[in-house]
């Protein structure tokens, strides 16, 4: 099965159905089975095609009710792979159907990792970075651009991810592991994400010292000297301090409250 292979007319229809069904994924997200109900519904286009009698269909729907959780934006790739496996299972009686869930479980972890860092960590941050500066100037384009920058790539990945997953089918993990595509995407996304977060930290965290030293008759505002050596040093240090506290296991909500307290106390005693 090569990736250059053209899809037949019916397969293209199947891809569109997978795309539309994928929006069901998180409708009933819950603690017991997480996205399972939505995923199972997302498999229906494949199940109704490949299995003609009620018993087989029920068995397949039940199979996909197993606990499932991944980044919603990339789910169709896994649906695509599972679809290819269901096709194989329906045509080949000796195919062990347990493999389908094993492959799904094997995929949902890595895809959640890559999906979260690509969509939540990188794409969303870039979209926020661009939308935010417009919103701060009072332009309605801010939120609109934010949504477009996020969702155009999102929808493309959602559709073509399904095609990609289906085409590679069982071979996806071998192919991906051999050429290291997953690692490359993950590493590249991390680099871009870190640089953007760094830039946004510099532009959006504000902390200035209002301390003034008096030596003889001369008044020396500390912030002026800091700016000459390393502009925005204080925001950088504060962000790294927060990172350190989180690494040490402090709860985000705790450090939010601590930060508010620091802001209020610091401005009361006049150091920031």
């Amino acid at each position: 099965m090569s990736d250059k292979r053209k899809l037949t007319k019916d397969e293209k229809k199947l891809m569109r159905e997978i795309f539309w069904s994928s929006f069901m994924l998180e409708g009933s997200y819950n603690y017991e089975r997480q996205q399972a109900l939505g995923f199972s519904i997302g498999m229906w286009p494949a199940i109704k095609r490949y299995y003609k009698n009620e018993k087989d269909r029920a068995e397949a729907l039940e199979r996909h009710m197993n606990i499932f959780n991944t980044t919603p934006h990339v789910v169709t790739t896994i649906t695509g792979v599972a679809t290819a496996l269901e096709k194989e299972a329906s045509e080949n009686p000796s195919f062990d159907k347990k493999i389908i869930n094993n492959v799904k479980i094997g995929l949902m972890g890595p895809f959640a990792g890559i999906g979260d860092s690509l969509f939540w960590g990188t794409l969303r941050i870039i979209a926020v970075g661009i939308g935010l500066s417009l919103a701060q100037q009072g332009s309605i384009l801010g939120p609109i651009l934010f949504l477009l920058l996020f969702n155009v790539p999102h929808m493309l990945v959602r559709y073509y991810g399904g095609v990609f997953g289906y085409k590679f089918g069982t071979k996806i993990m071998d192919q991906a592991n051999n050429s290291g595509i997953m690692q490359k995407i993950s590493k590249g996304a991390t680099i871009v994400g870190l640089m953007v977060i760094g830039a946004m930290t510099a532009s959006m965290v504000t902390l200035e010292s209002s301390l003034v030293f008096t030596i003889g008759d001369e008044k020396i505002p500390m912030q002026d000297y800091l700016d000459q050596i390393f502009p925005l040093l204080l925001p950088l240090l504060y962000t790294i301090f927060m990172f350190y506290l989180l690494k040490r296991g402090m709860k985000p909500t705790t450090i939010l409250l601590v930060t508010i307290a620091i802001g209020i106390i610091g401005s009361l005693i006049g150091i920031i």
Partner: protein
Amino acid sequence: MQTALIVGIILALLWFIEKMLGTAMVIRPIVVSTIIGAALGDVQTGLLVGATLELVFMGFIQVGGAVPPDVLVGAGLGTAYAIIGNSGAEVALALALPIALLAQSIKVLVFIIRSWFMNYAMKLAKAANIKGMINLNVGGLLLHCAMYFIVGFVAILFGSNAVEAFVNNIPDAIMNGLEVAGGLLPAVGFALLLLPMMTKTNVLYFLLGFSLLAYMNIPILGITLFGVVLAFIIVYEFNGKNGDSDTTDKEDEEELFDV
């Protein structure tokens, strides 16, 4: 009464759209506050509040099964209270945080209730009743939307006066402090984003992005493009040399922060 209805409907509708479009980010503060602002007749305040809250709530995202503070309810109600009381982003921020923390429990409750649905879902699957499964799934979503509607409606209907009185009694010194804190809070959001990503070896990319802006004032889009080019160079040009760096990353990370 009318305002309360509008806010309730917006919260419910945004959640419905968010899930029916596969987590399309319409519940992020930059969008929520703008829409609340537009509905209550003050788009400008909505936009400014949205920008402020977006930064503060940046790190509050649902990754995996853990439930983060509820940004939709926090941003929605915070903005609504700020506009109703004719106050600015600081007030919205001061209100949005505790509200988001309280509202966290709505999601937890819904996730528990929907866990009880799963037995029924299994029965439907065993009967190959796909229509029933879709109805149950959408029903679960509507249940969540209904909870948001009730919370928004009740909070605005009964809370506005109390909140306004409370806000008017906050001393100026505290308000100034809140403004300073508003500048600092994004640091928490960024730190949360960095938490799963940054390690001893790749901290340099963070510093690079920071310095490019701090010293050279390059716009963020420009820095993003540099980042993409740099990522391609590193991933494809130097691929052979540091192919196994992923494993060493993890070890380094532990050494650095095991203080």
